[in-house]
């Protein structure tokens, strides 16, 4: 069975193994033991904080474990806030109108405005699933488990949450936006800039980036076209978030132009439609051992440090109680009659 749980100190080796597989451009998981250990420390500290009444610098990093092998095969995370230790930069794609009545010209010109608007906001991040496990809705479980955690502990996050999506670059990691914009202001290459940023070192952005709006119409077409577009590998992840109610509100990455998607936590479909019910340990009705059919449901417990989330399939919609097998209950770290949070895995299947 596939289980989402908080990362723990024993996971360093597995995390390192995963980090090696992420490749260039995935800067939140770099294959450096010291950095990863620091990340684990931060996450362990965050999950063990009790009585959190408002978001601070918590970093909730979770892993997807295949209980049949004990392997860690994916990660996902939530940062309680960004930009409070190091500035967090983005471009806002706005418009400026230039109009002349006399000449009957009316131009609406898109502009990129450098800002720190996401400062203090919660971010969902560090989503990675090993190639061999990209099936059986594991990706959805990994991504949406975070919403179950947020639904259960909204006081730990801000009203608005966002996600940065990887932008367009070619096979060599060259980004058209960087080539026509960033390159002129940084005397380092895209990869180096990206890595510095990943290490939380962002002062240089303020120092080197132009602080005036950039006229998008003056950029070459190949740069204009990537604004707000995701890398082809990221298309499914974007669609998944959009189905949950995330929206592109014209914020893009300053380096590659990839979009940020945002939502009010309470407006996320999986949060809004999730509900608490009591766990009934037993044989779920309408299911036969080993045969899976019916709708998919995310089921999580209501614990912080021992948070767990799994995916189950039921042919009869659950009411005020959810019947779980002993194995499922064990993987959720719950006993009979404990509360669990459930929601349909996908919209429109309610």
């Amino acid at each position, binding site marked *: 069975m596939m289980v989402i749980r908080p990362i723990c100190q024993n996971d360093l080796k597995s995390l390192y193994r995963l980090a090696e597989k992420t490749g260039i451009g995935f800067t939140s998981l770099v294959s450096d033991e010291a950095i990863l250990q620091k990340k684990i420390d931060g996450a362990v500290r965050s999950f063990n904080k009790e009585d959190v009444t408002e978001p601070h610098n918590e970093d909730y990093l979770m892993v997807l474990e295949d209980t049949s092998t004990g392997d860690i095969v994916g990660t996902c995370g939530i940062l309680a806030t960004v930009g409070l230790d190091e500035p967090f930069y983005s471009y806002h794609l706005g418009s400026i109108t*230039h*109009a002349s009545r006399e000449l009957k*010209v009316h131009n609406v010109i898109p502009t990129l405005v450098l800002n720190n608007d996401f400062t203090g906001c919660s971010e969902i991040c560090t989503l990675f699933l090993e190639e061999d496990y990209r099936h059986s809705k594991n990706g959805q479980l990994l991504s949406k488990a975070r919403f179950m955690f947020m639904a259960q502990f909204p006081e730990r996050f801000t009203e608005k949450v966002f996600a940065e999506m990887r932008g367009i670059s070619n096979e060599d990691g060259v980004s058209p936006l960087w080539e026509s914009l960033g390159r002129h202001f940084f005397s*380092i290459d895209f990869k180096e800039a990206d890595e510095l940023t990943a290490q939380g*070192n962002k002062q240089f952005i303020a120092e*080197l980036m132009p602080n005036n709006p950039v*006229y998008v119409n003056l950029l070459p077409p190949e740069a204009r076209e990537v604004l707000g577009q995701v890398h082809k590998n990221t298309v499914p992840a974007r669609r998944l978030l959009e189905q949950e109610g995330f929206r592109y509100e014209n914020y893009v990455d300053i380096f590659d132009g990839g979009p940020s998607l945002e939502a009010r936590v309470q407006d996320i479909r999986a949060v809004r439609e999730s509900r608490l019910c009591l766990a009934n340990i037993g044989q779920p009705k309408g299911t036969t051992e080993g045969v899976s059919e019916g709708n998919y449901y995310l089921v999580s417990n209501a614990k912080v440090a021992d948070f767990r989330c799994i995916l189950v399939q039921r042919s009869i919609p659950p009411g005020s109680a959810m019947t779980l097998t002993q194995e499922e209950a064990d993987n959720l770290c719950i006993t009979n009659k404990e509360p669990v949070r459930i929601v349909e895995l996908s919209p429109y299947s309610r």
Partner: protein
Amino acid sequence: MYLVRPADFADLPALERLAQQAGIGITNFPANRERLNDKIASSRRSLQTDVVQPGDESYLFVLVDTSKDQIVGCCGIDAMVGVDTPFYSYRIDEVVHASPQLQIHNRIPALFLCHDYSGTSRLIALVVDKAHQNNVAMSLLSRARLLFIARYPERFTKRLFAELRGESDKKGYSAFWDALGKHFFTMDFKKADYLSGVSNKNFIAELMPRYPIYVPTLPEAAQEAIGVIHENSDQSAEILLNEGFEFRGYVDIFDAGPSIEARTESLHTITQQKMDKALSLTDTAKGPMHLISAGHLEHFRVTAAPAEPQVAGLALEKATQERLGISSGHRIQWVAL
């Protein structure tokens, strides 16, 4: 021989012909009969007005080939630009972005829309028939303006500038316009250039970018055109540079042609010019070439002729005196060519 004098309404057909030849990129001299007529009218009005300090006056002069009594060139001065609507230019300024930590220190040139030349006198539109683009005619026409300014300093500002035509090809294609202006005007260079000559200039403020343009982000052809003089304007540029005009980093917002400026009092023609009596040339030696002016305002005349500076004044040939409408003993102004 050549003579420079203020333009008159009778010169309109000749001026129109010149404007058509001048082509694109000389925005203050559009081939539009009505506008040219206005320019002549404004010049006449300016010359007939008592001026205490510079305002919206403008002065238009023509170059006459006296042998055929034909208009072969023209030029002008605006007493002050930016009176009604601001006068826009791009100022090239370096923006410094430095990161001590990364040991990067970038100096990035950027174009800032400004109206630093608002409130300044401007030399405009030197246009001369191809057949007459010789040194004497060009110098006479260009420097005649400076003699006029020396005569009537109260009519001009202490700083003076001239716009030099920027790079564009015969069809009016400008790489700079194509990379920048076109995106904001959504019209071609020719049309914008024409409009800027005939219309009030509000539309520039309305349509032009309000934020600085970083030069390295422009296509290379556009970057290379910044501050470059159109080959047809090389000769007139050289005359002004020799006078002491300097480039201070201002370029035209359409074609990025450079503006050059100077303090009026320090210009070669103005520091060297003299006022004294006209004398008769008696011996056979004609003396070196001089620019010689006579007459007041509407009757201001300048010609180029051999002459001999003497203690009591400047000795001229009879023919030169006649061309200027004076005789010996009249006060004249001169400077060596």
